[in-house]
C-alpha cells in the first residue's frame, strides 16, 4: 500500500485510541439496552474497541509476531443507528473489484449484517484524443481512454459500532488502485428543543396586544 494509505490506517486507528482506557476488559454481554414500554424510547450503548497499540511502522506486517490482548469497553453513550450504509468502490480493473466484492460480502455475512443490494453500476469511460506528434501532423492522432469500473454494496440497518468495525476492516484491506466512497444514512429522534414551540398562544396574544 502507498504511504498515504498507511496514514489512512493511522487516522482510523487514532479514533479508537482516543477511547483507550486502562480498565480491565468488561464482559461483552454487559451491554445494556433500555426499553421503556410506556414511551418506547430506544437507548443503545456503543462499544468502543481498543486495538492493541502496535507502532505504525509495523502495522502492515500484522500480528504474526505476537499478540497483545485487546480490551472491549462498553460506554453508556448511545450508539448511532444507520438505516443504510452504501459502499461504492471504484477501480480501473474489474477483476480486482470482483475479488473485493467477494471479500466484502463474505465479511458482512460473517459479521451478521443484512446485505440489501450488491450491484455493479455501469462503467465510465473517459476518452481523449491527442496529437501523435510533437510538431505538426494534425491528421495523425492518438486516442487514450480511462475506464472506471464500479461496485456498490448496500447494507441496511446497522449500528454505529458495527459499522465502524466493518468499515475499518474493509478499508484496511482495500487493494492498490481502488478508491472507496461510503454513504451513511443515520436516523435520529426529533431533538427536545423541537418538540414544543417556544412561544405559546398566551404569549402571542400578549405580543399582539402590545
Amino acid at each position, binding site marked *: *500500500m502507498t504511504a*498515504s494509505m498507511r496514514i*489512512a490506517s493511522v487516522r482510523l486507528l487514532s479514533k479508537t485510541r482516543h477511547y483507550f482506557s486502562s480498565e480491565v476488559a468488561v464482559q*461483552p454481554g454487559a451491554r445494556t439496552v433500555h426499553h421503556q414500554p410506556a414511551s*418506547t424510547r*430506544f437507548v443503545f*450503548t*456503543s462499544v468502543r*474497541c481498543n486495538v492493541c497499540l502496535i507502532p505504525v511502522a509495523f502495522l*502492515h506486517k*500484522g*500480528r*504474526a509476531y505476537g499478540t497483545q490482548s485487546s480490551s*472491549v469497553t462498553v460506554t453508556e453513550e448511545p*450508539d448511532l*443507528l444507520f*438505516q443504510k450504509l452504501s459502499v461504492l468502490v471504484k477501480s480501473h*480493473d474489474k477483476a480486482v473489484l470482483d*475479488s*473485493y466484492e467477494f471479500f466484502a460480502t*463474505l*465479511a458482512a455475512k*460473517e*459479521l*451478521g449484517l443484512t446485505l440489501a443490494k450488491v450491484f455493479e453500476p455501469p462503467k465510465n469511460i473517459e476518452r481523449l484524443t491527442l496529437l501523435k506528434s510533437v510538431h505538426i501532423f494534425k491528421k495523425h492522432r492518438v486516442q487514450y481512454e480511462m475506464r472506471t469500473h464500479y461496485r456498490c454494496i448496500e447494507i441496511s*440497518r*446497522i*449500528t454505529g*459500532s*458495527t459499522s465502524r*468495525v466493518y*468499515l475499518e*476492516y474493509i*478499508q484496511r*484491506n*482495500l487493494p*492498490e*488502485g481502488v*478508491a*472507496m*466512497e*461510503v*454513504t*451513511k*444514512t*443515520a*436516523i*435520529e*429522534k*426529533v*431533538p427536545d*428543543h*423541537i*418538540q*414544543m*414551540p*417556544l*412561544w405559546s398562544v398566551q404569549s*402571542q396574544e400578549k405580543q*399582539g396586544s402590545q
Partner: protein
Amino acid sequence: MAASTFCPALLPLLRINCKFNGVYTRISLNRRAAYSLGLTASNGVERQGLPERGNQGQRRQRRAVEPRTERMTVDQDWTAVYPTAASFKPNSVPLPVRMGYPVKRGVPPAKKGNLELIKIPNFLHLTPEAIKKHCEALKPFCTEWPAALDSDAKCEEHFPIQVESKAYVSAGPSLRNPNARIITLTVKLSSLNLDEHARKKLIRLSGERYNKDTDTLTITTDSCPMKQQNYDYAMYLLTVLYHESWKTEAWEKEKTRADMEEYVWEDSPSQKNILETLLRMRPLGEKEEEGEVREELLGRVEVQEYKDSVTKLKNEGETETNMQQYKEAVKKLLNI
C-alpha cells in the same frame, strides 16, 4: 586477424568494465562486438579463459535453495503463509500459475520471475478461512441492531430525522476530500409538532427544500469546513424554521385570497353567487332577516355538498369523479 586487431583496442575498455561489473558484462561486450563485426570464432577462446577469472572475482553466486512450496502439505494453515497483504512470491505459492502474453506457438510464461504476477494486487491473504478468522476476532466489538426496528416504517416512526453524510478513501497527495463535509438532513413534516398555520408557514419558509409529494423537508449544508459544524448548522436551521413557523407576525393578518395556498369556500364569489341564487329562488312575500336566512341556507345539506364539490374541483383539479360530484350537487340544489 581482424579479431586480434580489434581486441587490443577494446581491451582497456573491457578491463575497466571488469572492475565494476564482473564476468557477465565482459562476456556480453565481447559477444556484442563480435556480432556487429560478424565474428564468432574468437568467442570460444575467450570463454575458456573467463570462468577461472569469475571464481577469483567479486561475487559468490547464491546456491539455489529448494522452494518452500516443496515442503508444503495440502492441509497446511494458509493464513500463516500469507497473514497480511504481500506481493506474490512464486516460491511461497504452490499454484502452477501462468500469466503474460504467450510467445508464438507457446504458452503464457510460468510464475518464476514473472513480473506480471507481482504487479497486480493479490487477495492471497484474504481467503475465506482468513476472513472467517478475522470476523471471529472482530465480533466482540460489534453491537446488534435492535430487533424492534425491523421495518423502514417503524424506523421512520421512532426516528423521523435522517442525516446523510459521505466519507471518501483514496490514495493521492492528500487524504482529505472536501466533499466529505456535506450533510443532508431529511425530515417528514408529519412527524413534527405543527398546527395548520405553522405547517403552511414552514413550507413557505423552506421554499425549494420542501417536496410536496413526499412531504419531506431536505436541508443540505456545506458552508462550514467540518462535517460536525455542518451537522450543527443543519440542526440549527431546522430549529429556527420550526420556532419561526409557530410565530405569527403582525403583517400576517394582511393575507389576501391570492396568498392562500388552497381554495377556501367561505367568503368566496362562489358562496355569494349561490346564496343570491337561492334567495331569489325563494317565493316572494316572505320577509325575513337576511342573517338568519343566510345561516339557514348555508346549513342545508345540498349547500354543503355543493361546497365540497367546488372545493375539490378547485384544489385537486378537474377529474371525472369531481365533475360528476359537482353535477349531482348542482342538480340537487336547483331541483333539476
